[in-house]
């Protein structure tokens, strides 16, 4: 493992080669100096490998290309594990071929890891809605700004390219669950969270663009199946309060319903009920938060404030 080096793992397949250039350009523009790029190519065409070499050679960066030529199935998780196996850096970050890093990404996140002594650092991101070359919208998601780790159980709020982790600070290097073809990044964080906890520093700066292509086709039934897997994993492995469990159930059912576009126009009574529960839980959590703040301001004694704070933390069970 090379100290101070960051390994950027980028996975790509034939259909993404035209966008790969921008992803690599964003890595080149990063102000952090000691970096290597690892491209995992999922495909069996020699000319594609040649094309990848030609793209990356333009920048004079250190790089490796690894090929996964088994194209009988989608192997997103395996591709990332292949990249992890090849990485020589102490710090690891991932990037999809269609996403982009800001120039401060590595320097800010690695700086936060060093400063906090934590193993992970995560930053904010902007969503870029794209129709081929044309960006119709850039917006910020606020999820990460008010992030606390427990919220990871309810929503996949950390895209794969928004964080960096320090391998030397982890007991075991995490690996992607190869059973997962979709939501593998979400499961990756959850599994690590369950096994070891997630010592994570959140920074305030924007570090990446999450690119959404408007014409991207999503396999709805597969997406629902993996969504359900995630739900079961959380349900089976994490102790939750009844309120949280109710919220989680409602959240996943609504999200599966929304994903199923054929039912979008059907007002489904049961889903609406779940939605209502979800909303009520959301509100309740907000009110509890407000009560905590008001109490902490009003109570004169430091000890009392601490006791109240402890009780509230138990209710929230924040990590």
């Amino acid at each position, binding site marked *: 493992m090379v100290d101070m080096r960051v390994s950027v793992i980028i996975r790509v397949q034939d259909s993404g080669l035209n966008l790969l250039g921008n992803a690599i*350009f964003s890595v080149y523009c990063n102000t952090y100096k000691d970096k290597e790029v690892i491209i995992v190519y999922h495909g069996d065409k020699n000319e594609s490998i040649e094309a990848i070499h030609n793209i990356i050679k333009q920048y004079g960066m250190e790089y490796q290309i690894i090929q996964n030529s088994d194209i009988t199935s989608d192997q997103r998780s395996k591709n990332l594990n292949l990249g992890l196996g090849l990485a020589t850096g102490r710090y690891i970050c991932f990037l999809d071929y269609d996403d982009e890093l*800001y120039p401060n990404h590595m320097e800010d996140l690695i700086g936060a890891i060093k400063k906090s002594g934590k193993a992970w650092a995560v930053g904010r991101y902007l969503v*870029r809605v794209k129709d081929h070359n044309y960006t119709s919208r850039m917006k910020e998601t606020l999820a990460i700004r008010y992030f606390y780790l427990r919220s990871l159980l309810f929503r996949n709020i950390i895209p794969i390219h928004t964080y960096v982790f320090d391998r030397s600070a982890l007991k075991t290097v995490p690996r992607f669950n190869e059973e997962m073809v979709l939501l593998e990044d979400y499961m990756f964080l959850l599994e690590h969270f369950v096994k070891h906890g997630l010592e994570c520093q959140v920074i305030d*700066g924007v570090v990446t663009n999450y690119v959404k292509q408007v014409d991207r086709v999503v396999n709805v039934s597969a997406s629902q199946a993996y969504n359900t897997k995630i739900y079961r994993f959380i349900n089976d492995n994490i102790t939750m309060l009844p309120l949280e469990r109710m919220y989680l159930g409602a959240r996943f059912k609504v999200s599966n319903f929304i994903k199923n576009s054929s039912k979008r126009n059907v007002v489904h009574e049961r889903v609406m009920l779940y939605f209502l529960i979800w909303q009520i839980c959301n509100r309740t959590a907000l009110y509890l938060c407000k009560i905590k703040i008001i109490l902490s301001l009003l109570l004169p004694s430091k000890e009392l404030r601490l006791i109240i704070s402890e009780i509230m933390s138990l209710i929230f069970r924040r990590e």
Partner: protein
Amino acid sequence: MYRVVISIIIYKSNLEILLKSLKILDSNKNGLEYAFVIIDNNEGAQIDALKAMVSENLSLAPLFTYIKSPNIGFGAGHNLAFRTVADTEFDYFLCANPDGIFHPDCVINLVEFAKKCRDNGIFEALQFPLEHPKYYHITSWKTDWCSGCLIMFPKKVFGQLNGFDEDFFMYMEDVDISWRARAIGYKCYTVCNALFMHDTLNNGRDNARMKEYMRKSGAILAKKYNAPTFMAFCGGLKDDKIEQRQDLARFDSIKNFRRLFHFSKVRW
């Protein structure tokens, strides 16, 4: 083979980023011929350091011209660069910010698109990773004005426009030159396959000072294009020299102050 002159104004700039950007051009000439004019608006304080870096790292080093100058501002700096090379043969004059990085295909895509438009326009690169929100047409790529972050002019167009208006010290000289170009029949284009990294989110600039420059330039633009409401928004004009200017342009169909400092319809 097309010849492109690249003009860069430096003032207490980060030379490492500049070198990174120039290295891209050095290793990806794409059949273009380059010449570089570097104007140091800080009396040449960084020229020696930059010269050393360029000659050590770039094969293009002999094509560089360095000029020491007092702090005359963005537009005047580029005009000085243009005057320096005006008598030489070249096709395009490209003004680039020193804190950005060229994509390997940036300049060639700009040139190819300009050729497609028969050089009847001015052309800006797309800022990356955070785009400027101003609108451009999805297929024709026409836009209301071109940002000076990276803007390319065919030589004859820059000459015809007499360059940037030197009354603008910084900001909005690009809006002004774009409107003047449109007024004489040229179009403005956003060449969206030509990327130029320019991180406006995290560049750590002194915001208060930048806002003051924007306000001043906004007032000049308002005076020049007869926009009293925008003038009031910018807090008025405190420069007698500009107050007395008689060559005031009024392009009612072109100017757009409705979106305040965007000067254009916006995408978000």
